[in-house]
């Protein structure tokens, strides 16, 4: 589609959608969002880009083959699950590590749950894009 309006709008929208997807990913634990939805949003962003600028441009913009992205996601999710088994709990149970602050005064926590969600995000993102790109290649 060679639409100037679409192309110009896409430049802005793609960036916004990607930022939004990361936002959705990070807020997912307390508000609507999460890795799955965020992955879908990110995939939509690239789908939009592909519609406006063509598949090749989208693939170039992504830089990494989407299949690799998906595989990395699965790997990260698996590792985060195993991390829980290594630290103390059962595999895939939530583990929380406090980075700063004290127990009762709040502070910054990091959890393997978030790492797991990032894995989900990448897996969904990569898988959906793999599909879209593959369909476009069938001439």
């Amino acid at each position, binding site marked *: 589609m060679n639409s100037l309006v679409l192309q110009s709008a896409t430049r802005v929208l793609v960036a916004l959608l990607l930022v939004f997807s990361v936002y959705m990913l990070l807020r*997912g*634990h*307390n*508000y*609507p*969002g*999460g*890795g*799955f*939805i965020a992955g*879908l*949003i990110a*995939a*939509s962003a690239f*789908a939009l880009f592909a*519609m406006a600028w063509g598949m090749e441009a989208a693939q170039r913009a992504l830089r990494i083959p989407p*299949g690799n992205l*998906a*595989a990395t*996601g*699965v790997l990260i*999710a*698996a590792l985060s*699950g195993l991390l829980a088994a290594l630290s103390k709990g059962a*595999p*895939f*149970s*939530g583990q*929380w590590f406090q980075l700063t602050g004290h127990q009762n005064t709040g502070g910054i*926590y990091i*959890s393997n*749950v978030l790492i*797991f*969600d990032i*894995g*989900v995000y990448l*897996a*969904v993102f*990569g*898988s*959906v894009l*793999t*599909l*879209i790109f*593959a*369909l*476009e*290649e*069938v*001439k």
Partner: protein
Amino acid sequence: MSATGGGENRNNGRAMPGRQLTSLTPIPPALLTLLLLLQMPDIASGQTFSFGFAWIADLDVYFRFYIDALSLLFALLISGIGTFVAIYALAFLHGHPQLRRFFLYLYLFILGMLGLVLAGDLITLFVFWEITSIASYLLIGFNNSSAVARRSALQALLVTTLGGLCLLTGLVLLGSVVGSYEMTQVLASGEAVRASSLYFAILMLLLIGAFSKSAQLPFHFWLPNAMAAPTPVSAYLHSATMVKAGIYLLARLHPVLGQTDIWEWTLTCTGAATATVAAVAALRQTDLKLALAYTTLIALGTLTMFLGSDATIVIAAAITFLFVHSLYKAALFMVVGVIDKQAGTRDINKLGGLGLSMHITFVIALAAALSMAGFPPFLGFIGKELKYEGALAVASEPALVATAAVFANAVTVTVAGMVALKPFLGKPNHVLPKIQEAPAGLWISPLILGGLGLTFGLAPELVNDELIAPAVTAILDTSETIDLKLWHGLNIPLLLSILTFGLGIAMYLGLTRLRDWLTWDFSHAPTNADLLWDKFLEKVRLVAALQTDLLQNGVMRHYLTVVFFTISLVLAYAFIRTGQYPLVFEWPRLNLKEWAAILLTIGGALMAGTARKPLIAICALGALGVGIALIYLFFGAPDVAITQLLVETLFLVLVAAILPRLPVFSPGRKILFRPRDAALGGLLGLLVTLSILVVLQTPFDSPTSTFFKEAAVPQAHGRNIVNVILVDFRALDTFGEIIVVFTAAIAAVTLLGHRLRRGKQ
């Protein structure tokens, strides 16, 4: 060229990597044999070992082993003969490019058999039982470039695993009657089992399993076909393993299932029939290996026949014969392998005069064959005398059993002559190349096995006191002692023996004429089991093809029709069965925006169903999806709503990418199917709605959602319950799901790539 001859020396001369390691393969079974021998005195004195660990504890299934005198006897045969077979195979398959693969299969086989006879749990036993089936499949089909070998392997696998399924059913029933799968408990509950109403079913199922494994009528046809295996495998298969598995099962469960009329009659008649049919078939063979294979059938029939009884002498005869048979049968198969290897043929009509050059092999063949024929002073003689004593002691039908035994033994004498005399005596065949003595690796194993037959014959107390007598005791739990002696005095068994020798020698001398007389053509007879098997497989394939056409024809519309129809049927049945219909239906109070969402959904559905152009149908589907997403949003599921919206959007994008490449809908076809589809869709929709209404009318009580609501913040530190469940409480499920998504993407890419390549060509 023989079946095993082809392609075995392709790699001759070139040293293979890891050869040194391969040549160590006889050591593990040898060590195991030694270990078992060391345990022998303890076990002979009545001690048993039982050990294991929980496997599926909730189902009371343990991975358990149990060693008593009976399992020890079998384990010794398996590991001992396994050692000699391994030594022999090293020489026989020397330079074979797939030698290591062969040993892998052989070890699998040895392990399977050992596990089977040492299993202390019915389920453990079954698992090893199936392992032996699979290992024998791999071994029989080892020459996988030969169609005959592949067919025989598949036949053996299918017959024995069909029997295995019956066995499993029988074992589970047996376990349910006993209340445990543990062997010691099973063995102790014989009376309860025999009194149970399930006894007949258990017995029949287990017998089908045992008979199919031990090639009894009517499952006998696979064993001669299994000759397609390399000779070391035949030697092993026929002497110590696989076919003896069924015999082991019969012996093992004798205290539980035996001592009833039906057990006695079934086993005696089946065994006698198998032995007789196999004896006639053995006389007709000109291939040495096949003739030996039929004598294995004779032996198995005899063993089955004897295990029907519960008289001590009969069981003692069975166990002694089992032991003797393993020794001489392994040796003779190895001898036939040597003949085949050196002379290049196994056809009895082409062989002669080998004794001039192959002295050692001749002596070994004579020793093993004399034991097989039952001549004194070999252990085979003792076995045969016991057999006759046993046959006369069988309670049900001594005359029948004795006649069958005499005939079977006479044929055994004849076949022994065929194997040990005919190829070695007489004029050398000038068509054959110059024959040389085989290398030591080929004759050392049969020499030892044949020598053992003589040693134990001269000194039977060596095996009787610690091996055979305890095994008999283990089966019968009797205090009666068995004494193996060479000389029993002048009695009926001795007379029968002399009769047997006379008959056997007469048959051997008149073998050519006898064979001419027996040459009726079985190959097209309706009773030919091999042929019947082929017909049976044909029918199975026919049914498979029919159901594939019916259910898996590759048309998406058809699949959906089948799935929707099935769901409708199940739901309708559930309503009719339970009689639960939604009694009260309260019209919901909805506000305007909710009505709008519902109208959007219904409108989208109607439009998608009636649209003439695919693009419109898909856009209508999108509208429907948005409507549903709105409903989710209004009723408090924003997460689901977002997901739904995004999926709808991406779906549209995907469809937009595919649509230009799809074939145009053919309207004629579509119109034809439309009323039917509409009816089916309407029916399914109605039934699903009704069932949801029923579900909603039952009071909602879910401890799970209460738990998640309460535990989300304190345990998982998150307030979005849906997401907390996804990434915390059920993270493993989610992990599985992303793997599914990933796999689906890979699969789609692969399929599309395939189509892409095909399109290009």
